[in-house]
């Protein structure tokens, strides 16, 4: 009964092992590539900007003089914008994906919503800016405020959160649902106790990616009329604002070489904020990450 046609020879196995080793090397190089580029970027930014990075830089408002220029308004603006964008986009995004994956009947309308969301992901940020200007700033009369900016940004990053959350929900094995259903759990209870915990890593990955994008986003906010110079501390969501990338962009286009360095210092601040924000998300994600 033993048939040698199936039992493989060592050479074939060796070839496969070598292939695997090569592939591993290639995959590792791929990973390394990203990290090297990041390192290169960081080194450039740091060497350029570190000289301008001091307390004054953090606490001053912008200035025409590089040595006086500070980033206070932009930091506060970014924090304000994010504190609207994070809850709004997460609630909207996660709810949408729960609806689509858990409740929606498989009909044309659902397919339409899904397609529509995927499509929104491809709409460039300037167009979202135009939308924000038309709808939030003008139609809903929010003016060029933090609120309008935060909502625009939420819509801009919504698709990424939805796509990531949907995929995460979709990947939960059916037997997990079965177990909960059989206990008499209601749909909403299952979502709370089975779906959300299991999908959290995926949702957070989406959040990390999209909020990273949001923190660095310039064009859409410029479109809705974000300021570039502002010399007061925003006190409510109806105040005007500027954000870090706009400030950086503005400095980078100045003729003076010193401003290039100030821009780099601004980038350092932006990256630090980003890393702080992501770290939080990553800690939560790591706590939830597990394989079935």
């Amino acid at each position, binding site marked *: 009964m033993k048939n040698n046609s199936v039992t493989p020879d060592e050479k074939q196995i060796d070839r496969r092992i070598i292939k695997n080793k090569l592939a591993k090397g290639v995959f590792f190089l791929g990973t390394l590539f990203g990290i090297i580029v990041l390192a290169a970027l960081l080194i450039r930014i740091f060497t350029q900007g570190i000289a301008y990075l001091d307390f004054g830089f953090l606490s001053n408002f912008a200035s025409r003089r590089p040595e006086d220029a500070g980033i206070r308004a932009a930091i506060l603006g970014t924090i304000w914008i994010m504190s609207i964008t994070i809850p709004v986009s997460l609630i909207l995004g996660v709810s949408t994906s729960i609806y689509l994956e858990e409740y929606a009947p498989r009909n044309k309308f659902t397919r339409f919503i899904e397609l529509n969301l995927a499509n929104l992901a491809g709409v460039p940020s300037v167009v979202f800016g135009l939308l924000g200007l038309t709808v939030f700033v003008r139609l809903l009369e929010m003016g060029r405020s933090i609120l309008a900016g935060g909502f625009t940004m939420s819509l801009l990053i919504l698709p990424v959160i939805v796509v990531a959350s949907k995929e995460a929900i979709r990947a939960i094995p059916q037997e997990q649902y079965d177990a909960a259903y059989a206990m008499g759990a209601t749909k909403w209870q299952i979502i709370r106790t089975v779906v959300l915990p299991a999908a959290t890593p995926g949702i957070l990955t989406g959040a990390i990616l999209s909020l990273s994008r949001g923190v*660095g986003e310039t064009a859409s906010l410029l479109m809705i009329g974000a300021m570039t110079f502002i010399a007061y501390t925003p006190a409510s969501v109806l105040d005007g604002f500027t954000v870090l990338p706009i400030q950086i962009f503005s400095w980078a286009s100045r003729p003076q070489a010193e401003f290039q360095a100030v821009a780099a210092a601004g980038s350092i601040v*932006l990256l630090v904020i980003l890393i702080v924000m992501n770290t939080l998300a990553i800690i939560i994600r790591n706590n939830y990450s597990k394989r079935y």
Partner: protein
Amino acid sequence: MKITIRERIKKNKAKQSYQNTIEKAMPLLFFLMASLSILVTLGIIYTLLRETIMFFTHISLFDFITGTEWYPFFENNPSYGIWPLLSGTFTIAIIAMLVAVPIGLASAIYLSEYASDRSRRILKPILEVLAGVPTVVYGLFALTFVTPLMQTFVTDLPIFNALSPGIVVGIMIIPQITSLSQEAMNAVPQSVRDGAYALGATRLEVALKIVIPGSFSGIVSSLVLGLSRAIGETMIVSTAAGSTPNLGFTPTESIQTMTSYIVQVSMGDATFGSTIYYSIYAVGMTLFLFTLIMNILANHISRKYREVY
């Protein structure tokens, strides 16, 4: 005898009418949130269409979709043919995807299938930082680092070209592809992997034949998101690619993409209310339709290959 759980549950059941309300309210709430995306789209279409119509009262639709020259600023003889912008957009997107897809998937596979738990937890967040580097910084990186670097390989590469911003856009979307694909791969149950390992499969074979098919829809989604972002990227392109609308796929030439045109005009000094001003809406509309077609295709693909557990 003390109260049994069964009785307590029955008692709770009787009390919990609010639970019924939640059960009924939640789907409605979620439905409303999901429908919001349609409102957003309608908003976008409304915003774009209103001015696009204005544009087409000045320029004929036929010229727009057949023209091969995009020189809206020549007052004496402007030409509004969308093709150079389309080809510029394609050029950047193709180069970016050529960079990002192999590298992004390679790192996703590495992180999901080869890396130890610990290194995954360190490497993945590091890569994700790449997604948050401001695009202004990327743009300067492309212009002052990648272009000179490329010039050592490609002689007489002009300072403005599609190649280096394309590469840098690719770098920027790597984390999107890596992270989301890795997440999808991670969701393939370990027991299914075990089945393959026990047959003597190498990690590569498990990755290619079990994990990738098992997470195909997630991978496709990540690629589509990446592509969308490549198409939509603006700052990097307008910094390092110049702004010359050229028709054709020549990575060594300066190009202009649809989005960089939109930004150029909307941040620039063009007259408000002029044909040029309206043209950005027509370009935006084109882009919108363009991504729509792309998404219909992608949707089709992932539907076809999805594996269910």
